[in-house]
């Protein structure tokens, strides 16, 4: 019962935050669409891409990478035991992409022309590829998420129609994600003159793909821990631990690629003398990749879901750090220009994240996201049972939840 109440409080907190945020976003949107980008952002002719590209777009897409990784694990590798975490992960990815589209609507100068790449082709442009990937993969994600809604509204005939094409959808999704993640890195390939050598490299597309995979899995672990704790669900520590072992491998691969590339380009020496810029680089590599990789490699460490979430949280933050370093720090360092996002830019980015979490919490309550079904449904059943036996039945989840904690 306590847990249920906690869950209700959390929902209340996110609802309140989101309603405030929606009002704030509406006000900023009004300013932005009547007086232009200059009225709400610190963007300028010398710094045309800022926080909305660096965080909302680059990180929104990257953190959704768990979606294709986990669906591929279940549907392509047939590792069915990962199924319980698939739907929340697909939901996270779907919300991530919706955040990207919302961010684009704020950031594009003329968002009403957003459909132009459909008919006006320039295959030599990375942005053209990015545009198509956003459109196609958002479609794939909505189809991958559709079964949740179809189950909820009992549209079985549509479900039957969707089932046989699922493997095809998943394969197309993995291909599109591979292209999309890497193309976000390719966006910066044309800027050798404008980026610090610690971040500019012809390897950017490969690095973006590898780091997005690591961050996507990190996000899956963090999100599983967060949502299951919030709703008093059993945490699949074993699954999260197995995923984290994959993370160790991915982080090692990423670090190897990164260091090999830095050495090959003679760029590693630019770390010294230490400056704010190179400290950003060291923080990104050490705190965002090396430390979590070592921690996650220790079997004892992986036994606690809380520690898993903390280490994977470091991976996610390190990933966000990398994307912002590529899009802001590296450009500042090489061009001598400065950019600090305005308060309104921060509010839009933070607001989109808050609303995303709110929608996630709502979806968990009213849709069959968890294997046990919609939470609201479950509560109703529990309450009815409680009345019948005149004594609240213990929530099945809480006992299992406690078992997963290893003392010490």
């Amino acid at each position, binding site marked *: 019962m306590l847990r249920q109440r906690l869950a209700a409080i959390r929902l209340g907190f996110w609802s309140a935050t989101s309603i405030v945020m929606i009002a704030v976003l509406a006000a900023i949107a009004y300013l932005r669409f009547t007086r232009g980008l200059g009225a709400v952002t610190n963007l300028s002719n010398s710094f045309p891409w800022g926080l909305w590209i660096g965080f909302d777009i680059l990180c929104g897409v990257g953190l959704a990478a768990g979606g294709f990784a986990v669906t591929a694990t279940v549907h*392509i590798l047939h590792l069915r035991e990962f199924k319980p975490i698939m739907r929340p992960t697909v939901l996270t990815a779907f919300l991530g992409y919706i955040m990207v589209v919302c961010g684009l609507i704020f950031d594009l100068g003329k968002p009403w022309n957003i459909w132009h790449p459909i008919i006006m082709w320039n295959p030599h442009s990375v942005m053209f590829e990015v545009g198509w990937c956003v459109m196609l993969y958002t479609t794939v994600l909505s189809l991958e998420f559709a079964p949740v809604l179809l189950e909820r509204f009992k549209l079985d005939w549509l479900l039957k129609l969707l089932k046989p094409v699922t493997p095809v959808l998943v*394969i197309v999704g993995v291909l599109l994600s591979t292209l999309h993640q890497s193309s976000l890195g390719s966006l910066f390939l044309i800027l050798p003159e*404008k980026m610090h050598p610690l971040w500019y490299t012809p390897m950017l597309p490969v690095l973006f793909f590898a780091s997005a995979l690591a961050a996507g899995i990190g996000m899956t672990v963090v999100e599983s821990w967060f949502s299951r704790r919030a709703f008093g669900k059993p945490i699949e520590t074993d699954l999260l631990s197995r995923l984290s072992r994959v993370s160790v491998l991915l982080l090692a691969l990423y670090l190897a690629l990164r260091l090999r590339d830095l050495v090959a380009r003679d760029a590693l020496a630019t770390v010294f003398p230490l400056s704010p810029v190179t400290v950003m680089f060291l923080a990104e590599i050490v705190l965002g990749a090396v430390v979590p990789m070592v921690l996650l490699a220790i079997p004892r460490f992986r036994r606690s879901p809380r520690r898993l979430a903390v280490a994977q949280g470091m991976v996610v933050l390190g990933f966000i750090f990398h994307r912002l370093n590529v899009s802001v720090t590296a450009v500042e360092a090489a061009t001598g220009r400065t950019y600090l996002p305005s308060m309104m830019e921060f509010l839009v980015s933070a607001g989109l994240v808050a609303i995303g979490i709110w929608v996630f919490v709502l979806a968990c309550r009213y849709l069959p996201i968890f294997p046990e079904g919609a939470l609201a449904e479950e509560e109703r059943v529990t309450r009815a049972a409680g009345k019948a036996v005149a004594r609240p039945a213990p929530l099945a989840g809480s006992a299992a939840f406690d078992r997963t904690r290893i003392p010490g």
Partner: protein
Amino acid sequence: MAHRGILVDVTKCIGCGSCVEACQKANEQPAHEARGLDAHSYTYLMDRGNDTYVRRLCMHCENPSCASVCPVGALKKTAAGPVTYDPDKCMGCRYCMMACPFGVPTYEWHSAAPRVRKCQMCVHRGAAGPACAEACPAGATVTGDRDALIAEARRRVASDPKTYFQRVYGITEAGGTDVLYIGPREPAALGLPAVKTVGPLPELTWNALRHIPDVVLFGGVFLGGLFWLTKRKEDVARAERAELADKGDHHA
């Protein structure tokens, strides 16, 4: 004219600002003192001291980064030379501004329907050519066929090594540009962007983009294969389990 170019001879410039004035007039902008490239100023004069004035304007690259990165083809390199812009196609991603190594395109930051702004070499004036070249009283900005201008620039530089720094800016920068500079000092000292890349920048992008068909093709085969193999494994395991259960039933 085969391929139009513009030659700026910094040694001849007297800093009168006629080019700036003519540019604003030709592009129907209110007359004002231009202090940099912005949404209302497609050209301006940099005062580099010692009576040296250097104009900035769009370089009209042979292989323009801006046109190559534009997802909708709003920016285009025309056969006649100028790099043009179509605001109706533009969706405002500002990738052109990021990509330009010369820092040329600017944006209407305070407009509700913003456009990218930059010199288009007066394409709207047709055969009359760029207004700035027409207005220059000192012959510091001249227009003509690019190859002829390069020959002329090389001739001037070679014939007067005391006056000219021995280099024509724009022949190799970012794969070559249609706007060329010669002057009394090295380009960097004149305030011109030090673009180190000699080849066309769009090639850097194409090196990655050209792998897309292979990623889709081999990635698709690989994933399809994985699906097929692990599915088979799962089917076999299920059949074996069923068989075992069957046997168990008989013995019981």
